[in-house]
């Protein structure tokens, strides 16, 4: 077997993506156009950014259901800052810091409080959604017409060398966090904590601290997704991001990362996010109603989880 084939045989999700794209290209001639492909990438970028953080959390043996609410609250705060004429970079930095802080709180509850990740982040999801509604008074916050508003818009709607800015950001996120995961101690510790917490502790890893940092990453990236979404829409919706946690989890799982923790790759998550993006796009191109889209998406996730179950036997 030659090298590319070997890579394929070890990357079932990648085969799935190629098969899916081929099938859609045959069925719909407008699929394989530069515009449409860029469109898919742009639409996928928000989920992809969230899914990177979700990959860290799931690799560590946890789950984060609060990312959608973190996105909403951070988006609202960012819009409010920009509208209040805070400089764009400062507004974005403060927002990311807030997201990281909220995530770290999840991590502390899980890592030091010993609460199940599902429960801890479900609680955070509810509370932060409430906080968003309180903060926004239940109404959208527009970024206004101030000096920074235009510059801010380009974070979500602009282009660099013909490529949408969100796509560039997502690519950067994948590269940086991919390197962190495979090349640094932080990444190794993340795998170790998810692989076997007892072994990790006896190897000198401070499991609680590590979890604070891991959930912090998830919060940071959810906030980044919030910034992108808010910039693109030039306003923050209090209900933004509802259900996004499921898309992110789906991308991770479809990408072959084990829900049991300790096994998976960020490359897989990228492929998983693209599969979901292409699937959505194809169903739109073929005029399938969004109700059926949900069923189709569910079926794909089920397939991936079944495959994971077989693998771990």
């Amino acid at each position: 077997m030659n090298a590319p084939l070997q890579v394929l045989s070890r990357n079932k999700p990648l085969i799935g993506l190629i098969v899916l794209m081929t099938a859609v290209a045959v069925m719909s001639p407008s699929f394989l156009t530069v515009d449409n492909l860029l469109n898919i990438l742009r639409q996928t970028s928000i989920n992809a950014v969230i899914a990177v953080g979700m990959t860290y959390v799931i690799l560590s043996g946890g789950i984060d259901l609060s990312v959608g609410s973190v996105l909403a609250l951070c988006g609202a705060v960012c819009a409010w800052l920009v509208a209040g004429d805070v400089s764009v970079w400062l507004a974005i930095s403060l927002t990311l810091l807030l997201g990281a802080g909220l995530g770290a709180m999840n991590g502390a509850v899980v890592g030091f409080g010993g609460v199940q990740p599902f429960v801890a982040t479900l609680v955070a999801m509810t509370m932060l959604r409430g906080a968003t509604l309180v903060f926004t008074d239940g109404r959208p916050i527009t970024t206004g017409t101030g000096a920074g508003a235009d510059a801010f818009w380009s974070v979500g709607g602009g282009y660099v060398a013909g490529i949408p800015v969100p796509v560039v950001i997502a690519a950067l996120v994948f590269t940086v966090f991919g390197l962190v995961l495979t090349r640094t101690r932080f990444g190794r510790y993340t795998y170790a904590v998810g692989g076997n917490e007892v072994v990790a502790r006896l190897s000198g890893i401070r499991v609680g601290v590590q979890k604070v940092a891991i959930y912090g990453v998830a919060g940071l990236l959810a906030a980044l997704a919030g910034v992108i979404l808010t910039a693109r829409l030039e306003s923050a919706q209090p209900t933004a991001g509802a259900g996004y946690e499921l898309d992110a989890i789906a991308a991770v799982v479809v990408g072959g990362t084990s829900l049991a923790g300790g096994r998976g790759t960020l490359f897989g998550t990228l492929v998983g996010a693209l599969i979901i993006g292409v699937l959505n796009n194809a169903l739109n191109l073929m005029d399938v109603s969004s109700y059926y889209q949900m069923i189709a998406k569910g079926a794909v996730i089920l397939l991936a989880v079944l495959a994971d179950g077989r693998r771990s036997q």
Partner: protein
Amino acid sequence: MAPAPGTPDPDAILDLRGVDKAFNGVSVLEGVDFSLRAGEIMALIGENGAGKSTLMRIVTGIITADRATTMTWRGGPAGFATPRRAMDAGIAMIHQELNLLPHLTVAENIGLGREPLTRLGLIDRARLRRDAAALLARLRQPIDVDRPVGTLSVGQQQMVEIARALSLDARLLIMDEPTDALTDVETAVLFEVIRGLKAEGKGIVYISHRLGEIFTLCDSVTVLRDGRTVHRGPVAELDEATLIRHMVGRAITDQYPYLACPPGPERLAVEGVSAEGVRDVSFTAAGGEIVGFAGLMGAGRTELGKAIFGASPLRAGRIRVDGQEVRLRHPRDGITAGIAYVPEDRKAEGLIQPHSIRTNMSLAALARFCRPGGVIRRADERAAVDRFMAAFAVRARGIGAEVRTLSGGNQQKVSLAKALMLSPRVVILDEPTRGVDVGARREIYGLINELKAGGLCILLMSSDMPELLGLSDRILVMAGGRLTGRFARGEATQEAIMARAVG
């Protein structure tokens, strides 16, 4: 009496001939012959990775053979498709690695899958507990049947595992290294039970790396080497040296090499330490010294090791390393103080089973392969892992192989290498040769002695008495969490130690 390789035995209840098995194209068993009669205790021995567990997993239907000329069980076909079918046919196995559910109680684990029911179809808990207690009484284990299994020591878990296998009342009982976590007292009880089963006409396959046990217990022996049957015959016709030669293909002299070192300065001082399961323990240990710890199961040796490492909190007492008092609140503090710990339970505490040899081996010492900022210098890491792979002669596909695909002994070597990669000043070895074959043991002892010569202070906790007596400079005996005896090398005898261990 077992026949020579290749010849069939008309009286065999289990008869396997020409069994082949490969994993991912790598041949593990090649034309293996194995047979057993009713009422026979058959030893199955061989080096780590020789294929003993694989062969027995074929017999119990966990995996299937690729090819076999004959496989019969009591006259019928033996290639069972599932463990359930093998169990229904009267074959039970005690696996090498513990397979209990830690959150369930002892009774629940013993009865798992065969719970007695009341007339209403609910689990008859009273009977479940009674049956479990009766089985444990037969093994003379006063373990509370309501305790979650996860809170028991490895040895106690092993006894629960044995009780579960006994409860199946099988015609053939396969025991894959059942004593590797047991001390002499429990081993003696187990042997009595096994002899009872033999008298009832049951067949026993007994796998062990403690060769002494083969001569005390077994009638016949089958030796595997590199996936082939190299010897079959009665135990009475063999001596230990011949057996070893069959196993490893060469003679091993001096199985427990003692290295006399001039004692260095005091390295470790433990003063009045109390912790979970440990009461008021004081001792010192020098560089270039091996201090052995003897005791029965539950005597507190593992707990003491964990306390000295920082894995379980001290309730009282002080610990000094090289004269400096150290505060130990987390294993990381132990590592920082120059203490390394090799846990007895490699599956649950030592290694991350689905991860590679490489990431496991370097995990504790990762900081030394990092640039500031935590970027791993992967070439350095790789070189270090390669070095330990060679020094410990780990048999594996490569350093990327998942730990769970290694044989038990090779996993143990990886676990040891992981601790030694820290270049510690004090190393606590809890059952360091659990499941390790004679050849590899000899290599490990050689390495331990080299480290000793280099000034390392070694605490050796072992339930393998010849090993303890052979390697230690001093032996401390524990019972009920306390130190109950101290012996210098030469004064220590098995009897004297046992007298103190029983308390």
